[in-house]
């Protein structure tokens, strides 16, 4: 049975048992995850261009190297590549900042200017007050997630927001299932502290 996500796109699980050929199946899988993957990359990188690059790279690598793998393996593989690209980007950014600060230049802002996506008109056509409340909630979540250590953030977004099971989250993160549970528990504890006042 095919299920559809909030954006009208097939959920990852929906294409796992499909009988389409590889390209069509991969297209269905990628169209189902690309928006969420973009947001997940944006949580970590806080820059839409870098997030887009990371997602594009992850799609390309999955198509080039792992299209022949069983479809059930695609979600953890895709998110593993994506997390790897995110870490690469963060490392490059850190090196660039060290280089710039060594020569007395301006550091690249860790926090980019306000996201124009957040400021744009709501395509869903919601009431302004509803939109403002939602934007505030998202901004609070964004800030709280950004304050988390990298591994805790990965565990939270993959397990809670993306909905991978513990085994797939562990594969995506390249660690044991026990580590996933530990990172997740700490992440939830930190978020409870930081978001409690906004959301409780």
């Amino acid at each position: 049975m095919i299920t559809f996500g909030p954006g009208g796109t097939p959920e990852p699980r929906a294409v796992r048992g499909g009988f389409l050929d590889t390209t069509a199946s991969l297209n269905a899988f990628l169209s189902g995850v690309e928006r969420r993957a973009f947001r997940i990359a944006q949580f970590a990188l806080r820059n839409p261009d870098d997030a887009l690059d990371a997602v594009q790279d992850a799609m390309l690598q999955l198509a080039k190297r792992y299209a022949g793998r069983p479809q059930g393996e695609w979600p953890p593989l895709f998110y593993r590549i994506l997390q790897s690209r995110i870490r690469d980007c963060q490392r490059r950014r850190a090196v660039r900042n060290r280089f710039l600060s060594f020569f007395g230049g301006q550091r690249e802002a860790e926090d980019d200017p306000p996201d124009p996506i957040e400021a744009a008109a709501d395509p869903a056509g919601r009431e302004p007050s509803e939109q403002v409340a939602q934007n505030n909630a998202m901004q609070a979540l964004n800030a709280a997630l950004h304050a988390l250590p990298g591994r805790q953030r990965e565990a939270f977004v993959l397990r809670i927001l993306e909905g991978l099971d513990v085994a797939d989250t562990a594969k995506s993160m390249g660690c044991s299932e026990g580590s996933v549970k530990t990172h997740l528990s700490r992440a939830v504890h930190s978020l409870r502290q930081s978001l409690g006042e906004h959301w409780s």
Partner: protein
Amino acid sequence: MNEEIDNRLLAKARLAFRESVASLDIATLQHLREARARALQHVRTPPAFWRRPAWGASLSAAAVVVAAVVGGLVWWNLNSQPSVPFAANNGEDMAIVLSNDNLDMYADMDFYRWLQAQQQQSPKTQAESGGNNNG
């Protein structure tokens, strides 16, 4: 109590995330579509059936079996030759060669064998043969 707070927190986080995904702008969606199309161009077509790992393994196994059968048949054929008469003849011949006798005798072996066979014939045959010779 904490569990209830956590559940509410997680539900709100999921909702905020879903809303933010649904509210992506058209330009970003277009970029994602283009990126996906570019990625799909790099999907490799599956290899021909005989190059697939399953076929390769089957063919290798079949080749090993065929080689084993052929090798077994050759070995069996070599070992099933009538070896005793050959060994006896061969031993007899070798004894002559090693005894440094005249090699002409070896060349006339067939004649000597015929002669030996004649001498071993039954007495009746010998007598008749002798009678004829005497007569």
